[in-house]
């Protein structure tokens, strides 16, 4: 199908799916009875999106016509992700902001999707 005619749009689509899955499990983590399962889903899907951000950045850089937005957006997503990890691991007093960061990551994935739409 033409809509999925480039690797970037396929990866961006997978990214949206993973980010939504991770976001919901993240929200469920707060009040989950089986926190370990929610945590597993949250981390597994979340870490996969990191790989996608990195691959998308490399694809954007290796393109013959470099689109600055296509390079910067995955890097921004990566930065937000790392800050989120840093808060969770080191600065728990900022923990109340991580759900907002999860929402930001979904927004970034939507932008990555739109940037990579084949014309």
């Amino acid at each position: 199908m033409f809509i999925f005619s480039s690797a970037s749009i396929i990866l961006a689509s997978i990214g949206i799916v993973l980010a939504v899955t991770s976001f919901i499990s993240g929200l469920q983590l707060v009040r989950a009875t089986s926190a370990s399962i929610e945590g597993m889903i949250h981390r597994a899907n979340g870490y996969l999106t990191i790989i996608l951000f990195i691959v998308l950045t490399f694809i954007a850089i290796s393109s013959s016509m470099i689109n600055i937005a296509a390079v910067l957006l995955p890097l921004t997503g990566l930065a937000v992700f790392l800050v989120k990890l840093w808060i969770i691991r080191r600065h728990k007093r900022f923990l109340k902001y991580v759900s907002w960061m999860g929402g930001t990551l979904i927004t970034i994935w939507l932008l990555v999707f739109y940037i990579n739409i084949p014309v």
Partner: protein
Amino acid sequence: MLPLTALLLIYSTIIVPENYKTIQEAVINASLEDTIIVSEGIYKENVSITRPISIISRRGPDFTIVGAAVPSEPVFKVSNVNNVVITGFTATGSLLSGIYLYNSNNGTISDNKSVKNGNGIILYGSSKNTVAGNSADLNEKYGIYLDSSNRNRLGKNSASSNKDNGIFLSSSSYNNLTDNSVNHNTWNGILLWDSSNNTLKDNRVWRNRFGIVISEGGNNTLINNSTWSNIYIIMPLILAYIGILSYIIQRRVLKTIYRV
């Protein structure tokens, strides 16, 4: 139609820049039905063709770029001549058009990229030409523009991200548009104005202000064209829904595995 190798044996071949430094010099010195092979490189010139010849790039449009030396003129202009072949070039930098066929018939314009011009490809008073596999993208006005041109075949072209219409047929009839991608143009995807008896088949006309517009023309045939304007608004919603389903499935699977 004879294959390229057979053609090269029958008619003489001129190689640019080995035999002539510029494409225009080669065109001037070519005999009827000669073939000009252009090696990779960036050429700054306007090529005017007034005799039936074939101009073919050796390595394709990504390696053979012709930029307009005089921006007010087309990069390639074919005037009052039949059976011209232009294949495998990037034509750019003209305020008028990358490739312009004027009163020329039975030509073949294939596998070119006509980008960042006033218009991508223009056919004026030209009939029975084949325009196939070209990219006419990112132009200031139209991607592909046919005026008073009949019985042409436009197949597998891309006419996207132009600042007016993707493909515009004006007073042109009996043309066949098949399997073209006409996306993300500022105004109409395909506009047929005062044009009749054209056939539009299997074209993808997505994300334009208007998809296919027919005005003051009759008896045009539209078969299996897709004109989705909002596909990329719907798609993320579908993906988000798949994300929710994915969460439910993963949760069920893990609960089953860990017996929680």
